[in-house]
């Protein structure tokens, strides 16, 4: 599979992507805080991985460290291209990519859960169902429709409506800001 990946085989590349995207994404998130920038950078990183695949040498190390190095370098290039400097000297060890818990983080998480529960309680019964099943549990529209007795179209509409309402809810925004601000 590694040989096919190095040869630029698309299927092999996608297998690598599926296996490692979840581990590369947090690293990109350390360089780019805002979702849109992060998504764009994440895409650029993987296109760079595709271009650089022939240079991967399994004898010199594993695939994940190589991917991490490519990702970090690409992110720095993107920041430089935008006239920005990386704000942190980011270490690339494994443990840095794992979320650690601390008391303050726990408190923030509690406040976020409280805000979400309060927001959910303010919704009509139909909205609460869609919020829970579609936005929180991310079930498909058809499944939500079956569970709620509403049409898939209405579920889709409510999902978008609730997304906008959630983004405009001041308490929820405050709680979200706490857990998403750098």
């Amino acid at each position, binding site marked *: 599979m590694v040989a096919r990946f190095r040869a630029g085989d698309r299927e092999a*590349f996608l297998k690598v992507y599926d296996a490692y995207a979840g581990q590369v994404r947090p690293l990109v998130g350390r360089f780019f805080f805002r979702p849109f920038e992060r998504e764009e950078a994440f*895409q650029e990183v993987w296109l760079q991985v595709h*271009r650089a695949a022939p240079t991967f040498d399994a004898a010199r190390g594993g695939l994940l460290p190589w991917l991490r190095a490519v990702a970090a370098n690409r992110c720095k290039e993107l920041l430089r291209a935008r006239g920005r400097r990386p704000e942190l000297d980011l270490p690339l060890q494994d443990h840095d990519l794992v979320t650690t818990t601390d008391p303050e983080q726990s408190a923030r*998480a509690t406040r976020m859960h409280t805000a979400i529960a309060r927001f959910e309680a303010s919704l009509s019964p139909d909205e609460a169902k869609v919020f829970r099943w579609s936005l929180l549990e*991310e079930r498909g529209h058809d499944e939500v429709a079956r569970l709620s007795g509403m049409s898939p179209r209405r579920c*889709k509409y409510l999902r978008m409506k609730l*997304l906008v309402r959630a*983004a405009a809810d001041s308490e929820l925004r405050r709680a*979200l800001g706490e857990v*998403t601000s750098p």
Partner: protein
Amino acid sequence: MSLFFHRRAIVRAVAGELSADAEASLRAHLRTCTACRDYYDQLARVTEVLATAAGRADTRADDRARARLLVGLAAATGPRDRVAPRRWTWAAAGLVPAAALAVLFLRSAPHPEPAPYQAMRGGAETADGSAPALLIFASRKDTGTGHGPVRLVAEMPASGEARVSLDDYVQFSVRGLRAPAFVTVVGVDDAGEVHTYVPRAGIPPPHPAPSSAAISLGASIDLARGHRPGRLRIYGLLSAEPLAPERVRAAAAQVDRTRPGAPPLDLAVPQVSGLLTIAP
């Protein structure tokens, strides 16, 4: 101002309800518009954090990222993957299917098209980073002054579905062309009736030059004449040579009205399309 027109598309994009071509078009806009990008970020953070709160990955965002990567890969590896390119003016104009069609036509076309036209189709963004767009302005009829204030109701394809009423005058403009192009604008209503808005009968089609400013495509149209309430699929066709009106009407008449949105016309030219809902 721009956010007003892109808000719905942004919500749909974050909710994972926007088609790939429309999302590509929106993303091209987001790269250049801070207000829209801020709104996108605001909504995207909500979905991210709700996913985190529920103790799961944001799978819809993951799926969208994978889909975008596939398109990007296709652009990087060439046409063998038969996927529309990533850096797309015409995809940015909401025209991935049309661009893919156009590529196929180009492969078999016996006569290559003039260079500026190919450049238009090529997929680079305009100098200011914007994408070609068909703008629709409307103004309510006013018995005293003739018409009320002019408002921008659509910036197709990125603005999504727009609404006007039979009491409106509408006028079309184009913005963001990369090369001079002849512009044809037609509409197809739910009953299959085809309306040709640009060019008017007996008037040569407009041939605007590349510009980041909106260029008017002619006089306004009274929707009360010949229109009925309902959906109208609007197509802006951009071509190197003037298109034969009967050919355009034939293609418009054949559009599959059972498909959602405005499916591309069977014409090998770049197209900007969108839906206009006419209220009574």
